């Protein structure tokens, strides 16, 4: 992909993440009527949320969006720090790291959804 396309995607994912992150915090924040910072993260409440297929889909979309945005950012940092000659190695490393995060996170999200609905 062209560098400008990657950059545009970075901006678009960035704006999306502002929204997604607000939803992610509202899941448990007591300030907006949630169960609170400690209580909102109990297994029972987690399980209740995971039963909702929309949350499951949201988590996977959110995960993929953060992974792209984070890795594009890390790529810029690493290339500027180490120099352009490391670009290929940096790209491969970050693509592998990102794939691992998306695959593992999606696997966990889907598994936990199935566990919660009792399949």
């Amino acid at each position, binding site marked *: *992909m*062209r*560098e400008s396309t*990657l950059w545009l995607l970075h*901006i678009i994912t*960035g*704006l999306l*993440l*502002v929204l997604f*992150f607000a939803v992610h915090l509202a899941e448990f*924040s*007591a*300030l907006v009527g949630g169960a*609170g*910072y*400690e*209580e909102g*993260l109990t*297994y029972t409440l*987690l399980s209740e949320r995971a039963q909702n297929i929309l949350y499951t889909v949201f988590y996977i979309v959110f*995960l993929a969006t*953060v*992974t792209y945005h*984070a*890795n594009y*950012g*890390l790529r810029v*940092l690493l*290339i*500027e*720090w180490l*120099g*352009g*000659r490391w*670009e290929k190695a940096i*790209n491969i490393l970050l693509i592998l*790291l990102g794939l691992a*995060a998306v695959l*593992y*996170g999606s*696997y*966990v999200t889907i*598994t*936990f959804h199935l*566990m919660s609905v009792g399949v």
Partner: protein
Amino acid sequence: MAKVREVRNRRGLLGWLNPTKFNLERWAYTLHRVTGFIVAVYFYMHVVVTGFRAGGREVWESIMATLSNPLVHPLELIVWGSLFYHGLNGIRLTLAELGLIVGKPSRPIYPYKPTSLGKTQRAVLFLVMIMAVILIILAGVEMFILPAGGGG
């Protein structure tokens, strides 16, 4: 992917990390990169830690018990603060990228005041800082004051 032009970076990390001797935008930029890095590292840790929920109730409760301690909470507040700043400043950067808050270009005349850092950009930057501070205070309330006061 397009080949990135080789640029020598003699000063290494400090070349772009040190904002002193530069203007306000440079400070915002350094903070944006540092907070972005913090959030990216946290994100990968978060994927691993939250992955424990697939192991069942006992596994989840043991990892939560390990992480719910006074050493971890201040670190988490740093992550929250980083996220708030990074997100808000990211909105500002998007506006600047679209050319909305940077003012009109003008001829560079000594002492070279950057037109991009005019009143609008400065105002938005201060708004970002103030909103980030308010959100960090709210996060502190959420983390340290509400759990203690709520009897939980």
